[in-house]
């Protein structure tokens, strides 16, 4: 039966999947296969596809959507078995690996996308998609930052003025006004608040702050990255393509000691409470009343705006910026998605045309007006802000002001991303659970640095 495993690991995949290659999705006859993972974005991009087909009568776009987890494994087997799409939505955490595996086409080499200008997009977004060889592997489509989502009802019940949330500050010593608020919003099963005498931290009904886990999968994007960066910390020596890591620095370790310390005080849910490896997100925690507020990304705006309570009544959700840190500034990770053309595409020029169209004004405006994400072009971003204001009565400027005020830092782009995640995730989980001290990250940091000495 081990033979079965070996087969799966090595040759079965090759033989079986290539055998299915004949029926694969590699676009033919002017049909361009396009993949994305966010079902919320599919209607918007379908509109773009319709407009594109109208302008290019010979071409057809076929959009397929797969959930985040299966998306990447499907794509991987697609590359192996020659069933990968012509164009797919790419993530910064993955693209370096795909460049190394030589499955992405440089967009500079394709006619339609050779003239993409960095300056057309929000600052810094387009540059992120250039490989170490200086070539462009993705055309920017959208961007995201993080902010605090909160349940207005929970604030009213606590007697907190929402305006107060616009000027929160924190520090790794006592947590500042941010921790005071988190403590006040925490309620135990007897109705005692976290900052009141007699609070039972072992039986908490509502936590002041939601938890999205330890953050090993995306450098603490919706967990601790906003705190660490506002304390002046950066993941690597340079970004993109850093080769030296900073997990041994006090700025991070003090931040994490404070952040995961909130769990010991009962203010933050534990690893077990959020469901371990299959954790529920901030949206579900707020919805079910496990948490009063929490950090989440701008891609979740439409999900939050639709949340309902157990009786089906809409929850009144609002957004506040991440707190101001020891550096005197706020911070948010700035991440972006892009569209990439695969080397397996049999019609790269047509694929590039579609990529160019999606990164162009017309499509980006359509996406902005669908209000699901912030498009990469500034004008389309404004359309998204307006959509949220008028259609959802939601002020989303806590996300966009971070870009305006230049308080963002870019998602760390490195090679060996999959190996980094494999090392980082269990070790950070251990710190969150409390089975390893924060100082254990110093050893992990050496391991990460060694990756770049050995693997290259």
């Amino acid at each position, binding site marked *: 039966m081990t*033979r079965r495993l070996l087969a799966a690991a090595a040759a079965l995949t090759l033989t079986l999947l290539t055998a299915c290659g004949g029926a694969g999705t590699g676009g033919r006859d002017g049909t361009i296969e396009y993949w994305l993972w966010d079902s919320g974005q599919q209607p918007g991009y379908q509109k773009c596809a319709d407009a594109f087909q109208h302008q290019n009568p010979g071409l057809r776009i076929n959009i397929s959507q797969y959930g985040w987890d299966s998306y990447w494994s499907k794509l991987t087997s697609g590359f192996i078995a020659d069933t990968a799409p012509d164009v797919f939505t790419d993530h910064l955490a993955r693209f370096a690996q795909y460049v190394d595996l030589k499955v992405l086409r440089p967009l500079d080499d394709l006619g339609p996308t050779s003239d993409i200008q960095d300056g057309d997009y929000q600052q810094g977004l387009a540059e992120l998609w250039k490989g170490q060889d200086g070539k462009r592997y993705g055309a920017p489509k959208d961007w995201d930052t993080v902010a605090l989502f909160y349940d207005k009802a929970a604030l009213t019940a606590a007697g907190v003025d929402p305006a107060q949330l616009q000027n929160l500050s924190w520090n790794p010593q006592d947590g500042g006004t941010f921790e005071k608020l988190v403590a006040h919003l925490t309620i135990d099963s007897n109705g005692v608040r976290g900052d009141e005498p007699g609070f039972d931290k072992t039986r908490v009904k509502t936590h002041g702050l939601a938890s999205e886990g330890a953050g090993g999968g995306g450098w603490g994007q919706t967990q601790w990255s906003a705190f660490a960066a506002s304390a002046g910390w950066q993941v690597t020596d340079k970004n993109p393509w850093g080769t030296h890591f900073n997990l041994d620095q006090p700025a991070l370790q003090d931040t994490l000691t404070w952040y995961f310390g909130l769990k010991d005080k009962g203010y933050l849910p534990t690893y077990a409470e959020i469901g371990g490896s299959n954790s529920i997100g901030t949206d579900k925690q707020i919805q079910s009343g496990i948490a009063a507020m929490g950090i989440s990304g701008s891609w979740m705006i439409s999900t939050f705006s639709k949340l309902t309570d157990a009786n089906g009544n809409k929850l009144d959700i609002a957004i506040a910026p991440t707190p101001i840190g020891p550096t005197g500034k706020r911070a948010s990770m700035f991440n972006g998605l892009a569209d990439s053309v695969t080397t397996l595409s049999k019609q790269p020029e047509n694929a590039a045309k579609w990529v160019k169209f999606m990164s162009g004004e017309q499509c980006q405006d359509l996406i902005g007006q669908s209000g699901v994400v912030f498009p990469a072009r500034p004008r389309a971003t404004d359309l998204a802000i307006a959509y949220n204001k008028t259609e959802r009565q939601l002020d989303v400027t806590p996300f966009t002001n971070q870009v305006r005020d230049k308080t963002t830092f870019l998602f760390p782009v490195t090679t060996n991303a999959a190996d980094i995640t494999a090392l980082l995730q269990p070790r950070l989980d251990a710190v969150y659970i409390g089975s390893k001290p924060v100082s254990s990250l110093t050893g992990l940091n050496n391991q990460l640095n060694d990756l770049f000495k050995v693997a290259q």
Partner: protein
Amino acid sequence: MALSATTRPDSTRPAKKRDDTRLALLFIAPALIGFLVFMVWPTLRGIYLSFTKFNLLTPPEFNGLDNYVRMVQDPVFWNSMRVTVYYVFVNIVLQTAIALVIAVMMQRLTRRTWLRGAVLTPYLVSNVVAAMVFLWILDYQLGIGNTVIAALGLDRIPFLSSDAWVIPTIAAINVWRHVGYTALLIFAGLQTIPETMYEAGRMDGASEPRMFRSITVPLLRPVLGLVLIITVVGSFQVFDTVAIATRGGPVDSSRVLQYYIYDVAFGRFQFGYASAMSVALLLVLVIITFVQYRVTRADSSDLN
């Protein structure tokens, strides 16, 4: 013989014998081709790949014993080996004990076919579905399991999110699914024990537990030995339940060897290293099967 064959008027007999061989080969061919193509060739190729650096998309590069050196030095590998052995131990002990009791009860207490069939029903559920269902039942906040525990006034148990509970929980889920099948195999073995043995036992005034100890268990040994070999080999390959329910967490406490191999191969594109670990697993299983076979003397029975 040769002489008589030539003198015999009807000389078709030797030709018929050759025909048999050809027919036999024809019947064996489908299984043999499948065995060669899907078993032998991938195994050989896997062993070859374990000496290379290979990412599936570019040609493999020979790198000697590098993968094996890395394996010996990899603490995650040794941890996953330990976790797997722990899982196999809990899984097999529970499963065999319960299956034996069920099988004996099926034989000694009931003759109803539907009751015997009912024991097998969990086996009809796929591993993935079973894992999903238990994931929900055992959820810390919302699961009905923990709701019942909380209603009884006890503390909620983080079944799948604490390092102490996770392996016993996964082992129990798989026991639930496989115990009926194992019981059925043992039941088939019980049917081979002649009823006269039990009659003789009753004549001598032996109680049911005594007959179980002195008649059933010794005579069941060869079947039990084979069942153990099958279940232990299967148990070592636990994957689906872990992939669905915990993804190796919390930390590394349910990172069983198969899941680690999968992660290294398909998550990190290190097919060379993954193949090396697969070869290690193959060796472990060969050794365990060999030892089990000898210890249980599964090839001989006390019945004769």
